[in-house]
């Protein structure tokens, strides 16, 4: 039992070794199903989109629903790259048609693939009769979940258009201006975005857009639109007046009419989207690549005033706060103190540089590291700087004030934030130790003459105390590759595991044999039988009748003794008569041998041949 446990443990150990070396790379399969509308009339159809991620070879199984018909309309594959992550998805498009009004539920759609199984959530929707739907369409603006938007000039004939709404139209250079970008697609149009909105025009740069826009619905001139909204910011980089607009590339999936009547006007005319049942249901689709552009708007960028600009100003524009923390506050000369300086608020954080020591004498400063943490929407956030400073002399009692300058566009003036000096104990001074402390910002106008000393970065020449060079190059190697990644070592491991497996099997068999008398006897019979048969054959060939019968009797008694768990010498003809059939050839041979021993009976060559064949056959059949 213990041996079995040990072997199981060994196998487990090998398994863990393999698992550690080979991490799993299985991808998860997910499936989502969406219906483009929650309510539609019986004379219209809805569009069901089934999107599956994580696998590309599968077949969806949609259960039959009484009163509903599903018609596959297409299949598309989409590759996305969002913030460094690639993902691929396959989308099946179906038209859903109802035979009657009522509430329906599409049960979960099952996806079975080699990569895994998944299923969607159930979708419940309502199908109305024709009159109800018409009423719904003519509802007053603002009803339901959709909001109403005033239609602007030139938008009436469009199935897709864009609007941009800046927070203000006049800003300072570097100031971030909130910008809302809204793209409208008429309801029922399937659109694939081929790009994010791009800024057209000079003088401004657009902050990076969030990958996923906000999706809403709005009613514009009694037409329902799906609206995608991005919230971003513009930053003016060139003074003066600029005309800017936004553009976006999209592919629209448009239904084609079956009739060949003249289309009233361009491909985006309303007639394309008539309510005809046949056009909805049997009409084919056509892809149109379009560029959706917003109207141009005039924006003004003002230059930052030169008057009152602090020397330490680095281009930060907005509304900021400063918080400074130092740790530890009791150090020996030469030990570093870590300053944690947090600039928080709203503004162009990409231009926010590290606050500086107002009096750097006696201090050695190192380059700071920084980290920006966004705080919700808009341009709010905080930038945390960590900087090591080292006291170069004894007698320092405080970390000097730390200053940060920025331009406030609301008050249209420069602001200077100044932290209070932080008490410090440099070892050797007889002052009580203080724990780390936080010094909140203090806002004050600093004297422009108090220039901040530049940060001194020591160069390599100042490095003292380095251990000397090694005088021998030592044993040379070709690469830094670890042995665990080298082929010979991996082969060695495989051979090792195989050898151990073979050794385990051999040991297990040996232990089974050692603990089983039956197996031992079987082994002894297998070992002895050929020896005795050889002796019999030799005697037969020598025509030694007496010796032949003795050898036959010995062979039979040995085999039966091992089989019956008896001493071979103790088996007599009488025992065999009790245990064996009366016509057994083995019994006859033993009796003949006993008779020969007492009466000196001789066998002919033919008899010996028959006996030898019989003994061999019978004894081999006993094994």
């Amino acid at each position: 039992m213990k041996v079995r446990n040990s072997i199981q443990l060994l196998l487990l150990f090998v398994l863990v070794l393999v698992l550690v070396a080979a991490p799993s790379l299985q991808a998860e399969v997910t499936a989502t199903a969406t219906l483009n509308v929650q309510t539609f009339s019986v004379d219209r159809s809805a569009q069901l989109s089934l999107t599956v991620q994580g696998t590309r070879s599968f077949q969806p199984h949609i259960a039959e629903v009484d009163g509903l018909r599903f018609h596959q309309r297409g299949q598309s594959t989409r590759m996305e790259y969002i913030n460094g992550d690639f993902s691929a998805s396959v989308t099946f498009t179906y038209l859903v048609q109802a035979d009657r009004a009522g509430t329906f539920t599409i049960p979960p759609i099952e996806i079975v693939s080699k990569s895994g199984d998944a299923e969607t959530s159930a979708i419940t929707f309502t199908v109305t009769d024709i009159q109800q739907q018409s009423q719904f369409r003519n509802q007053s603006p603002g009803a339901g979940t959709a909001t109403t938007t005033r239609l602007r000039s030139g938008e009436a004939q469009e199935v897709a258009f864009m609007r941009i709404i800046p927070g203000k139209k006049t800003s300072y250079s570097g100031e971030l201006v909130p910008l809302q970008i809204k793209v409208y697609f008429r309801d029922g149009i399937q659109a694939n975005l081929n790009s994010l909105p791009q800024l057209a025009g000079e003088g401004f740069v657009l902050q990076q857009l969030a990958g996923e826009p906000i999706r809403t619905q709005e009613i514009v001139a009694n037409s329902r639109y799906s609206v995608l909204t991005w919230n971003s910011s513009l930053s003016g980089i060139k003074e003066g007046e600029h005309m800017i607009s936004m553009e976006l590339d999209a592919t629209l999936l448009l239904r084609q009419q079956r009739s060949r009547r003249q289309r009233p006007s361009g491909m985006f005319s309303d007639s394309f989207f008539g309510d005809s049942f046949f056009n909805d249901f049997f009409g084919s689709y056509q892809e149109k690549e379009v560029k959706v552009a917003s109207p141009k708007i005039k924006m003004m960028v003002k230059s930052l005033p030169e008057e009152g600009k602090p020397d330490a100003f680095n281009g930060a524009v907005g509304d900021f706060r400063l918080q400074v923390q130092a740790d530890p506050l009791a150090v020996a000369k030469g030990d570093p103190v870590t300053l944690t300086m947090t600039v928080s608020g709203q503004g162009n954080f990409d231009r926010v540089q590290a606050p500086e020591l107002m009096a750097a004498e006696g201090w050695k400063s190192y380059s700071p590291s920084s980290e920006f943490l966004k705080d919700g929407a808009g341009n709010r956030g905080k930038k945390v700087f960590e900087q090591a400073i080292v006291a170069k002399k004894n007698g320092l009692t405080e970390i000097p004030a730390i200053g940060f300058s920025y331009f406030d566009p609301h008050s249209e003036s420069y602001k200077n934030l100044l932290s209070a000096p932080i008490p410090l104990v440099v070892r050797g001074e007889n002052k009580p130790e203080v724990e780390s402390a936080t010094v909140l910002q203090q806002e004050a106008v600093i004297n422009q003459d108090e220039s901040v000393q530049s940060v001194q970065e020591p160069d390599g020449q100042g490095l003292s105390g380095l251990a000397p060079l090694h005088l021998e190059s030592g044993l040379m190697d070709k690469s830094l590759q670890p042995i665990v990644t080298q082929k010979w070592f991996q082969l060695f491991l495989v051979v090792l595991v195989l050898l151990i497996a073979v050794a385990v099997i051999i040991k297990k068999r040996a232990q089974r044999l050692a603990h089983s008398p039956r197996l031992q006897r079987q082994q002894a019979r297998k070992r002895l039988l050929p020896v005795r048969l050889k002796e019999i054959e030799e005697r037969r060939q020598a025509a030694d009748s007496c010796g032949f019968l003795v050898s036959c009797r010995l062979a039979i008694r040995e085999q039966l003794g091992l089989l019956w768990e008896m001493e071979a010498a103790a088996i007599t003809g009488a025992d065999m008569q009790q245990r064996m059939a009366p016509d057994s050839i083995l019994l006859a041979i033993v009796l003949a041998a006993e008779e020969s021993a007492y009466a000196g009976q001789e066998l002919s060559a033919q008899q010996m041949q028959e006996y030898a064949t019989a003994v061999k056959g019978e004894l081999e059949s006993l094994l």
Partner: protein
Amino acid sequence: MKRRSQMIKVWLISLLFLFFFCQLATASENRFKQAATAYAIGDYSLASQIFASMTVEGISASLLYNLANSYAKSGKTGLAILNYERALRLAPGDSDISGNLELVRKEKGIFQEERTLGQRFVVLLGLNQWTILATGTFMLFATLLLLPSSRHIKKNVRSIGVSVCIFLCFGAITGMYGRYAHFHDGVVVVSDARIRISPFESAASIGTIREGRLFTPLKTHNDYVRIVDETGRTGWLAASAFTSIASF
């Protein structure tokens, strides 16, 4: 007569090969000494150039250590830390290398987060040492299990041996895993490198990462690598701003 001339030819060819390899070794030694001399007289730039050229033929802990010292003296903090880290891969227990690395980091203000107990355990040995320990204890474990029962080995002695082997092997595998997870770490070798939120030059920056800082690469996209630095920040760093420690 003919046989004798053949023997002489073989000897001559052998001598030529021996002479050739001796010349190579001598040339290498001379360059090593030349670089050390340049370092001694303060020409750290020349020293680093010669040591760097020698790494093309092969590397050793001492060569990388000397190269790192030359870079440190030249003020090239990133390259110095990179080569100290490489030298430590070959000689994890070398106190000169670890001491100088610590000194350069301290002098340049590149302070590392205090290591957790687990991290301190992992850095006790190098990856190769952990691998050898894991393999050795695994072999010993298997041997103890497979040894035939004997009166000379008591059962409890065998059990203790097996338990110790399991403990050591799992510890070594943990060490291997911890070491290998950081085997392809990179070192920032330029000043004012920026971590960006997307793999594009125009993408917004989430902060700077100092020269000499270590980080773990996650994945690559064009000329950018997604990284997580020692403070846990994640973002994209330009491939030109760093060198992988294992890139030899």
